[in-house]
């Protein structure tokens, strides 16, 4: 089933184009890798799909309906977003953080229920860190913290999961753990979009790739085809495509 369809999507911040035309489709069970140099609009693209920003041109549809026609709560029941960095001034417990993921599923006049608490339990199990339940969020390592924030997103029971550079500060152990988790979620039926600079991980795990460059889109299609030395070199402005290819070979 088609989850998201994006056509000719454009967005600019105060006149400066941030997303200069993007188009792709996300189906159930897709793991879509979004790559591109800094400033090519990857994060902005996620914020457009999550409904936080409104496109200046083109369309973004979720389940055949314009993303901006959804209310915030409706959207949060379908799309979950894991930001790249989240500064937390207050020391919530892991349980409290994941429980907040239930927020869009609870009407405003009601409190969280026992069913919500057990969904938190399941979400922590799904990401493999049930033992962190009573720890405080700021006492965790960055890898554990990222897993907890993914658990929060899973507690929303979304159809689409968006992640902005989920592994950029993590060691290779957590990088693998997170990409295996995303693969598992995708094969369970979710549509997953990951923005990342981790070329080797994307090549190993992603099924589809969307490559953006400064002035627009360079490639959309199967990851095997798209994540080539030539494409990556062109998107990032690297002079020698062979050096990219060498990087990929060594990594694999």
């Amino acid at each position, binding site marked *: 089933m088609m989850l998201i369809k994006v056509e000719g999507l454009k967005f600019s*911040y105060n006149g400066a184009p941030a997303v200069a035309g993007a188009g792709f489709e996300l189906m159930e069970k897709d793991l879509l890798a979004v790559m591109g140099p800094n400033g090519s609009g990857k994060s902005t693209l996620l914020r457009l799909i*999550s*409904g*936080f920003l409104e496109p200046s041109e083109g369309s973004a549809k979720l389940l055949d309906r314009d993303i901006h026609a959804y*209310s*915030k*709560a409706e*959207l*949060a*029941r379908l*799309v*979950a*977003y894991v*930001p790249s*960095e*989240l*500064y*937390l*001034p*207050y*020391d*919530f*417990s892991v349980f*409290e953080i994941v429980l*907040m*993921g239930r*927020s*869009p599923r*609870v009407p*405003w*006049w009601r*409190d*969280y229920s026992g069913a919500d608490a057990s969904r938190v339990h399941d979400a922590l199990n799904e990401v493999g860190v049930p033992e962190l339940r009573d720890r405080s969020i700021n006492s965790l390592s960055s890898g554990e913290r990222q897993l907890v924030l993914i658990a929060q997103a899973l507690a*929303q029971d979304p159809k689409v999961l968006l992640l902005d550079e989920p592994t950029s500060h993590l060691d290779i152990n957590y990088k693998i753990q997170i990409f295996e988790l995303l693969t598992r979620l995708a094969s369970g039926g979710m549509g997953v979009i990951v923005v990342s600079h981790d070329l080797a991980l994307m090549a190993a795990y992603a099924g589809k790739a969307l490559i953006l460059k400064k002035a627009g889109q360079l490639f959309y299609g199967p990851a095997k085809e798209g994540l080539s030395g030539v494409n990556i070199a062109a998107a990032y402005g690297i002079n020698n495509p062979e050096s990219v290819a060498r990087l990929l070979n060594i990594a694999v």
Partner: protein
Amino acid sequence: MNKEMRKVLWLVPAVIAAAGLALFTGAVRAAGPEIIWGLRFPRILAAAVVGAGLGFSGAVFQGLLKNPLSDPYILGTSAGAMAGAVLCSAFGVARSSPFFYLIVFAGAFFATFLTYSLSKVKKRPSMAHLVLAGVAVSTFLTALIMLFMTLYREHSLSLIYFLLGGFFPADNSLLAVSGAIIIASVAGGVFLWRYLDIFSLGEEKAAYLGADPDKVRLVFFALASFATAAAVALAGTVGFVGLIVPHVLRIFFGPSHRRLLISSALGGALFLILADAVARAAAAPAEIPVGVITALFGAPFFIWLLRRTAGGDSAE
């Protein structure tokens, strides 16, 4: 009711004990029932009501804005309420008139929004931006108040005590109205506590969790402005209660607003009852305005907090 929530309830006997202690503290050593029940008791009630309103408002602002440096005094909410009160004085609106509360609330609400929108000039405002905007709004409003006091000298004396912050022989109907407004605001906030938890992750993340930021902000700014306006109407500007109290209570009860809102209201009452007892007894027979006592504690606390959070990220 879980264990954590039962812990919060210990604040109730603590507040009652503090009130009992405060009843027998004051300039008159062997005070008779007239002084104790006629003067001290309503004053202690006023301290409790004002403390609860300010503690609650501080907890709301700190959560809603994801900013540990927020409180009604720093954000200019109190100055807005003061300006409203001074305006009433200028136009001869009596404190017993319902318009008095409406105008004071309007001042508080408008000043809060002004600070908020000034801090949003930059796309990614830092925590300091909000504080700076609050300082700008407060300073401007205070200047207007001073200007008014210079022009209308006949009102100045009553207003200067109001500006310093403290409890005066106010009439009981004022106490009842302010008390009712604060209880209603706290009840409203406690009912909607879940939204403050998700706003503690930042406005953007709260939106991804299904909250409409504009709507939620409007509701909580209104609740906190009502509580602050009711507190200011009773005691003028008493600073830093809303800053200190939620921070101390987070240490005991954790950051979740499920417990923080009600405990900040109770803790604010406790703190201000004690501060007022000190204000009455420390330099007896002279009386120190309670705002002076809270500022003596609050300003160093604010500096400590500023240093601690200086490394913090942007407000989003």
